[in-house]
């Protein structure tokens, strides 16, 4: 009896935890980010563009997940931080026409991170990041 109760409790907890996790990244389909067909990484021009392609595309996918969420879990925050750090590495040696768009992208990711971490998240900040990402991507894919 006690064992059954324990199993019941664990199952309930797992269901609740599962629901909460789903909520965190919920509403992906309700995002008001404009629809977009993402290019393949191989479509990015050689050099800085190609070097940043995986992270830029990953950022696009993440933005759709978090655009309507009220919070982002540690994994999501970590992904934002890591993608920002990798993209930032290419700022110094980027061709001149990419430098500002790249910096704008890094900065816009920073704003999303600080607003999520500071519990002052506003969906429009993710939209702005996504707009910045699209602008950079357009320069890279043409």
């Amino acid at each position, binding site marked *: 009896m006690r064992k059954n109760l324990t199993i019941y409790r664990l199952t309930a907890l797992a269901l609740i935890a599962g629901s909460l996790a789903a909520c965190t990244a919920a509403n992906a389909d309700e995002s008001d980010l404009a629809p977009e067909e993402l290019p393949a990484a191989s479509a990015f021009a050689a050099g800085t563009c190609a070097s940043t392609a995986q992270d830029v595309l990953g950022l696009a996918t993440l933005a759709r997940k978090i655009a309507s969420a009220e919070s982002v879990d540690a994994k999501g925050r970590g992904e934002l931080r890591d993608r920002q750090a990798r993209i930032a590495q290419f700022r110094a040696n980027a061709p001149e026409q990419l430098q500002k768009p790249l910096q704008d992208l890094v900065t816009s990711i920073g704003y999303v991170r600080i607003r999520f971490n500071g519990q002052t998240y506003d969906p429009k*900040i993710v939209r702005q990041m996504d707009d910045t990402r699209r602008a950079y991507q357009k320069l890279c894919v043409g």
Partner: protein
Amino acid sequence: MKQRNSGIPRRRLFVGAVAIATAAAGIATLAPQTSTASSHREAPLVAGEPRLDNSDFYAFVSPDNPDTVTMIANYIPFQEPNGGPNFYSFAQNTAYDINIDSDGDAQPDIIYRWSFKDNFRDQNTFLYNTGVVNKLTDETLNFVQTYNLDRITRDGRLNLVQNGIVAPSRVGEASMPNYERLSNQAVVNAGSGIKAFAGQSDDAFFADLRVFDLLYGADLSEVGQNTLKGYNVNTLALQVPKSDFALRGNAYRNPVVGIWTTTSRAGVQVSRLGMPLVNEVVIPVGKKDEFNASRPKDDAKFLDFVQDPEVPKLIEKIYMIPAPATPRADLVEVFLTGVCKACGGPIAVDLNSQLLNQDVDRARFVPSEQLRLNMSIAPAKAPNRLGVLGGDTAGFPNGRRLTDDVIDVTLQAAEGALLAGAADAVKGLGDAVDANEQNFRNHFPYVAVSNVKAVNES
């Protein structure tokens, strides 16, 4: 412990006082001596002297009495409500000053000074009160602190309150069953529209102080908890008609005043506070004691710290958000000159510089750190916690109200919210603590009644 209050016209009293006071007792002597000695525990020396530690200062046009200005200064931060048996009192032999600069020369034109005296009814008991206390004058209140309040100008000293009674520390429900009534009894009508209060209150400051844990846990993740919740402070509050300290007594022509507090013991200034957070996060640790001992007229030496603040650099390091370009003329305007079109900064708005006073001598204007208030701006019916950044010019940095969220405003300003072209994202930065838990009183002294529950139970 008779509370003085003048049936006598204040001007006549003033003339009499001038005859007694010597010139040496005027502003010049009373100005603090420079010494390397003192907002919440913000500098090394004053952290060890909580009774002298002015943790917060507020100044605003009184919402229920808009011909007056209310100034509130808090001391002895982090008071655990049950911290007896001696609880919390102001220091004796100490000058608690509120300084007013109406002409912008960075020197006080008027000083309002409190000085305190300890009184015990019975020293043969360990008790702060020996029975239920319903009135400030009850014999059961064993420890009674009294104060004199003076108004000091270059012409001399005018006593406003003699032997005023300090509202005691809130010992507990059994001892003080109606503490709010007791606290309200400590409001003194000092004549000519002046009201004074001294006593314990809830700390009105709301913030997540884990800002000091490497900037909110090194990534702003440690936010949303009001660290000050449940703690008390000792409050000095003063309500004064605008004309009492406007330049030439004319608040219509000269509506802007600069205000700061100082605490001095034996003539040595150990605490100074005008704008919030300056000595906490603008001045580096090696200069904090010096700042606390300094005078506004000498503030040029702190200019670099205002022009090149540390917080945006920390944020850049963590979040890769570029710090606004330096030198920061916008922050100079906010902290040192007040905001006005003629102030030379990028914020082209006439808000709260003494340079806006019609009778000011511009040649004598000295940039200095003060809390500046344009008294001509009427109190907002629905105050915005972000003050001017939220479109509410009756709030911080035009003075400071109890409800103003100075942490969020300062963080946003540091990140360039006042600069043209500031990113929208900057306008939402903050510590996720947006208000005090306790409601403020809707009448003088406005601060909420002190807490009685132990902090670890609240």
